[in-house]
Each structure stands twice: as C-alpha cells, then as structure tokens.
C-alpha cells in the first residue's frame, strides 16, 4: 500500500516537475519575446527556450571531474525537491511539510550545489560570478526574510498551504491587500532572486564571460537552464502563494505567476546593471525598510503571539 502511494506520489511529482519546467521555459520564452518587443525587435519564438534546452541536452560537453557533475545535479535536484512542497493552485504534493523556511533553505541547497559544480571547474570567472551571486543573495534574502517573518506573524502559521487557505474568499483577503509594503519588498527581492537587471551582476556575459556558467556547455548548461526555469516557477509560485492568495486551479496560478514575472521583465528591460556592492546595499535600504515596516505593522496590528 505504501509502495503504491509512493509510486502515485512519484508520478505526481514527476508531473509537477515537468509542468514547472515547461512553465518556466515558456515564461522564459515569453520573457524573451516581450523583451524583444520592448526593444522593437521581432524576437525569437515563444518556444525558443524549449529548443535551446533540447539542443543543449543533445550537445556534447566537457566535465572537470565528478565534483563538477555532482554539483550540477545537486544544483538541480533540490530545486525540484523544493517544488514538491509548493502549493500549486489547489494541489500540493506534500502538504504536511510545506514549511516556508524549509523551502527557502532547500532552494539555497540548490545554489550550494550549483556553486560547487561551477567552482569545481576552476575558472576564475565562475568564482567571481559565484562570489557576486552570493553577495547578491545576502542582499535580497534579508528583506525577503523580513517579509516571510511578517507573513508568519500575520498568518500565525508556517505552512504555505495554510497561508493560502487563509487568503481564500476573494481579492480583499489576499495578503497583497493586507500587507502591501511586504509585497513591494518581495517584488524587489524577486527581481534579485531571478537575477534580472539591475541585479544580473553574477552572469554579466560581456564582463566576466557569463560568470558561473563559463565552463558549462551542453547538458551542464541544460541542467543550469532547468534549474533556472524551475527556480523561476518556484519563486514566483511562492510569491503567489504568499500574497496573491494561491489559485483555485492551475491556470489561474500560472497567470498570477506570469503577472509577477511580467513586472520583473519590464523592470529588467528598462534598467541597467548596478555594481554588485550597490545592488547589495540597495537591498539593505529600501526593501529591507519596507519589509521591517511591514513586520512592525503586523506586530502592532496583531499583538504579540501568546506562547
């Protein structure tokens, strides 16, 4: 019985992964299209990212040793694992463990694995890129944490599923209405999380030869792309669950995610790249202020929890 359940879950998980990957790739393609249109280009087809991924997975590549391989897999697997705890619309694969901080830390393991892989290549460009990525992470995770904690305090629960349930019943129940400042902070943090301009220091192609990815080719780059796409889905999904009240079905969920991503793309299209220390300190100023302010408001509104 347990095995059957496990197999069901396994197949469901596989499905979720595929869906997330597809959505992520599609979003990427749409993003490129939108970007092209903003720049008055025709742009690649929506499906360009699928073709790119397919090509990458079929292309030859070089490996710098087993740590390189392990790192790439370790960069991809935990992201997929984190996905399993995300409420996607009404459906959550493992609702009992969908603790928000846990998901955040699983995502970090993905970064850790990715970092291990790219650093094992021994290329200084990847090291510089990784160092920038990590410094940026110190920036955006702090306001994001403030927001997470204020949501915790507001919802009095740490389960994403329950946070979603609490927002049921219409637009006015959404956390975006109740915690607008927090949403704003999250939206800015999301820009950094997705590594879009002005926060794309880590993979500055003309500057440090695409940073962490400098030695990645073929399937390794493909894995990186999968990680990025799933990460895109996951991160926007978390924000949707946190602030936009989840969704009654999958399509609305994706639509909401897309709205978020659309904002990110628009910002990406019009802003130049900051220097890394400017970016980091930017996150410690406005977004952190917003996040903390939100938390303080929540504390004042709700009073301190009784322990």
């Amino acid at each position: 019985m347990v095995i059957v359940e496990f197999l069901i879950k396994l197949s469901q998980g596989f499905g979720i992964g595929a869906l997330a990957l597809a959505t992520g790739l599609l979003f990427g393609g749409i993003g490129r299209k939108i970007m092209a249109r903003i720049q008055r280009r025709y742009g690649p087809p929506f499906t360009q990212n699928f073709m790119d991924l397919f090509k990458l997975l079929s292309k030859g590549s070089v490996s710098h040793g087993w740590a390189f391989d392990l790192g790439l897999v370790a960069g991809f697997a935990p992201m997929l694992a984190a996905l399993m705890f995300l409420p996607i619309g009404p459906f959550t694969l493992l609702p009992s463990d969908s603790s928000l901080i846990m998901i955040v830390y699983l995502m970090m393991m993905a970064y850790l694995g990715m970092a291990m892989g790219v650093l094992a290549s021994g290329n200084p460009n990847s090291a510089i890129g990784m160092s920038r990525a990590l410094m940026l992470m110190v920036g955006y995770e702090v306001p994001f944490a403030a927001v997470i904690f204020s949501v915790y305090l507001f919802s009095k629960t740490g389960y994403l599923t329950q946070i979603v349930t609490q927002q049921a019943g219409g637009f006015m129940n959404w956390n975006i209405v109740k915690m607008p400042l927090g949403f704003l902070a999250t939206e800015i943090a999301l820009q950094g999380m997705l590594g879009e301009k002005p926060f794309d220091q880590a993979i500055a192609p003309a500057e440090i030869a695409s940073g962490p990815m400098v030695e990645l080719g073929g399937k390794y780059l493909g894995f990186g792309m999968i990680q990025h796409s799933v990460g895109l889905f996951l991160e926007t999904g978390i924000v949707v669950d946190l602030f936009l009240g989840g969704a009654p079905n999958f399509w609305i969920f994706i639509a909401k995610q897309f709205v978020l991503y659309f904002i990110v793309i628009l910002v990406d299209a019009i802003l130049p790249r900051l220097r890394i220390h400017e970016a980091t300190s930017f996150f410690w100023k406005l977004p952190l202020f917003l996040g903390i302010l939100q938390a303080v408001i929540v504390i004042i509104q709700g009073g301190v929890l009784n322990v």
Partner: protein
Amino acid sequence: MNSLLALLIVPVIGSAAAAVLQRYRLVERLITFLTFSVTFLFLFEIKIGDILTWHLDFLGKNLEMGLQITPLSIFMLYMTIAFGIVLTFYNLSERSKMKGFLLLLTLAASNWIFMSTDLIGFFFAWELMGWSSILMIFGGKREEESRHGALYYAMMSIGGSYSMLIGIFLLSNLTGTFSIQSNVSYLTLILGLHPWWVLGIVSLFFVAFMVKSGIFPFHTWVPHTYGEAPDGFVPYLSSVMSKYGVYGFLIFLPLTSGAHVPSVLGLAWPNYVLLWFGSVTAVAGSVLAFMQDDVKKLFAYSSFSNLGFILAAIALFTPIGLTAGMFHAFNHLLFNGAIFITVIAVISKVGTTRMSEMGGIWQKMPLTFLTFFVGIAAAAGIPPFAGFGSKWMIFQAMISHGLIFATVLLFFASIASFLYLMRAFHAIFLGQLSHKYDNVKEVSAIGKITEVFLLGALIFFGILPGFVLDPINSIVNSFGLKPLPTSGYEYINGFFSSINMVSIFIVVIVTFIFGFALFAVVAKHKKVPQEDNYTAGQIPQDWNLTPEMYQFSYDFYEPMDKELAPFLKVKIDGFFKGFGESVEYIGEAIKEIFTGNVQIYTYLAVGGLVIFVIAGWVVW
C-alpha cells in the same frame, strides 16, 4: 567505585599516565583515546538523579560539595565525551603537537563543570579547564602567534573567571552557602525586590560565560586562539569548550522565567538584552568570517557566530527556544566537529592555513571533500542534514515572540554564513589544484573511518532528529517548562509548523536519483584536464600560467568591504589591545621607580615614612 567520581578520577589518572608517557607519542595518544572511551563507558552507569556529596574543610567551615546528574548535565556529558572519542580517535593518526594529558585534564574539568552542584567545585573545574586549555594552545604550529593567541585567551578567560569569582562570593556571603541550587533560588526570591542587584551579580557570572563562548563583545580572542591552537585541539576547542558557556547560561536563565520584571514583547528584559547580545554575536561572527583568509580563523568566527544563535535561542527561555538552542548546540558540535576535523586534515596535508594558497584539493581527498561538503551544508542549515532543524526552530522561536529585528539579523547571519562557508569550500577544495599539492594523499584509514562516521552522524541526526530532541525535551521538562509535543523520531515540531525530515530526505533522494538518471541519459560528456579551461583564447602553456595564478580566492568578497567598512571600523579587538598596551606603558613608567640607585630607594622609604607620619598626625 562510584561512577560519578569515576568520571572525574578516570581522566585524571589517564592524564597522569599520559603525562608520564608523553615521550612515546603513539602510546600517549592511545591512552588519551582509551581514557575517553572508558569515561564514556562509565556514562552508562549513571542515571538522572544520581548524587554524590562530600565535605571539604576549608575557609574554617565544613563546606558541602557535590556532584549531581540532571537531564541537562547528562546530555552535555554524552555530547562532549562522545565527541572527544571521535576526536581522539582521529588524532591517533595525526601528528599534531597536542598534549594528551592536558586534554584529559580538560575532560575531567568539563565533567565536573557539568555535574557540580556547588559553586566551589564549579569554579575549580572552570579554572582547571581554563588553564589546561591555555597550556594546550601554546603548542600551536606558529610559535609567536600561538603564544599570542593563548595569552589573549588567557587574559580574557582569567578576567572572566575573576568576575565570576566576585559574583560567587557576593552571592555566597548573602546566602551562606555555595550550593548552586539554593543560590539560584535565593536570587529568584529577591529578584522582584532588588532587580538591579540580582542582575548585577548574574552579569558578573555571565561575563565569564560570554568570554568562554565568545559572545560579543568578548569574542575577540576567538579567532586569535582558534587560529593558532594545535590542529588536533581546535575541534575540541570550538565544538566542546564553547558549550561550557551555554551550560553556564542555562544555570541562571531560569531566574527571570517566573519573575515580575518589565518585559519587552513578552520577554523579560534581561533576556531581551541577552538575546541581542546573541544576535549581534551571530552577525558579527558571520560578517567577520567572510573577510578572513586564514581557514582556522574563518571557522573560529563561524563558531562564535553559531554560539550567538544558541544564546539568542536559549535567552528566550520558552520551550521552543530552549529546545532550539540545545538542539543547535548539539548540531553545532556535530557539524563544527566535522568541518574542523576535515579542515585540519587538509591543513596537515598541505601545510598552510591560508586559504588563498590552497585549492582543488577535492581531487586528492574526495572523502574529506564530501564530509566537508555535508558539514557546511549542515552549518548553512540545509535540509536534510543536521543543522537545519535547529536553525529552523530558532527562527520560529524568535518570530513567535515578534522579535522581528533580531530575527532578521539572525537570518542575515545565516545567509552570511552561507557566504563564508562557500568561500572556504571554494578556496580549500574547489578551484585550481596547485602543482605543489600533486603528492597530497587522502587521509589515513583512521581518518577515513572518522570522516565516514561524522558524515553518517550528520545525515542520521538530520533525518532522525528525535534521538536528540527526546533528551532535550526532558531537559526542557526539568526546567519546569512544557516540552514540545513529540510525534516520532523523524519529526521536528516547531511553533508554526512541523516537519517530517524523513519525507524530505526521501524527496531529496528521489530528486537526486532522477537528476543522476537524467544526467546519464542525455548526451555524453568527456573528461578534460584542469588546464583545459576557458582562458579567453590564451594557451596556458605559452604563458606559464600556473594553477595558482588561475585561482581566484583571495579577497573573495572584496566588494562587500565597501558596504561593511563603517561597521568594521568598530574595533573591539583594538580596544582590548589598546588597553593591554596602555597597561604595559604604565608598567614601563612604574618600573622606573626601581632605578637601581640605593639613594632613591632610601628617599622612597624616608619619604613614605614622612608621609605616614604626617598622615598619622593629621588623622590623629
């Protein structure tokens, strides 16, 4: 023989034997290891509530001294002795200059600290632990620096323990007893009447504990000392010895739990202050750590940063806070031990502690690399390894009190810990392998066994935290708090949510399997040597490009310096150093009194006499 006494006697006997036989290094190490093991065996003999008292004819009184086993002390004993066994086992193959007899004295002291029911015994053991560890640090590799580090530690530690000494007597003069329990209950009794007075005394104690744990602003000795201590001893120093402070805090923390003192966000304000000390420590440690190039110093900072987490959590003194703090203490012991043991393994092979001179060791020491990887993953709080659960609980404990600023600070420290861990990981193991290290070999069989054991422990306690949480719950219970509900070995129950670690583990494993499968299915890769690297078209051989030149690990987070510069200007280290220097300056001046000229001495004597006579005249 009484097993409680055996916990003190056996290490002392072992210490004497090791001291006599210290000329034969292997025998000495074997004795050290065996003594730890035998002491551990005696642990099975004791149970909670065991008590042993004796009387000491001292100070003209018949003072009662005693040993007692509480849930907390047995937890600490198991933790520290077990770690000691692992470390001494590892040291069997290490050629570090650690003196086993001092380590065993430290063990005796530590056992006594955890069991003592009276302040005399506590202070005795505290000082014993202090000096034996100081002498141990003298054996470091870099001689000037290790001396400096040990003296720094000695000054702070002795200063701290004198502060505690004053506290002990201020207390015992009021109560007329040295018993810890009656003194604490006395303090609890009068806390409402004289809060400032009680807190004054308690803070005298806390200074000693803060020094030992390296809590801000007494953290400055930590990098100097950890950085220079003998390699074989550093893991013990950072994993075990920093926990004495935690134990000490836990003695006095029940004070404010039931008292009527002003509170901040539902937290008694002394605890609130303590929590801030913890948070600031966590941040300071993390921030300072990622500026480091010396690997031992880096993890020294990391160590006290984690102690900040622990302090912040136990300062809450709620069931979840206490559980989280103790759990993190355990996890810190584990992952810090793993990290430091692997680090010293690498140091012993490459012969330097500067990270910018290492790199690429993973190719030579794969098992060490894996252990280190899991260690830092645990240290960064990544599920499903040990270390995640406790950090996760700490955040929940903090946020459940609405302590948003402190929580954000701690989260920042946690992310920053990710930074320095990554930096160490990169600089030591990843990147380019220098030709200097072509002959580096994996650790010996003993080292491998140790590493596999630690690796296993990190995963085991990560996915089955209940084995640690159960004893912690009984500790929480013994403090009169309601322990968190338990629902099986695989569950961690937080305030806001609970997590089934096994299911997370399974999910991660499945995704990993899937990842590897995908990796194997898609197009093949080919293995290339390290020189075949993107060099913007330049051919490395043509330009004598050595791996060291192609390794970026020095000043890894240089851009951050700009942002953090204002905070780094606050130099507490400099304060202590300046203080020391001015004392020395005064000493130079005072020394000039003794000029060597007998007439000056006569003048002094006659002058002194005249002053006394005049003073006597005036007073009379």
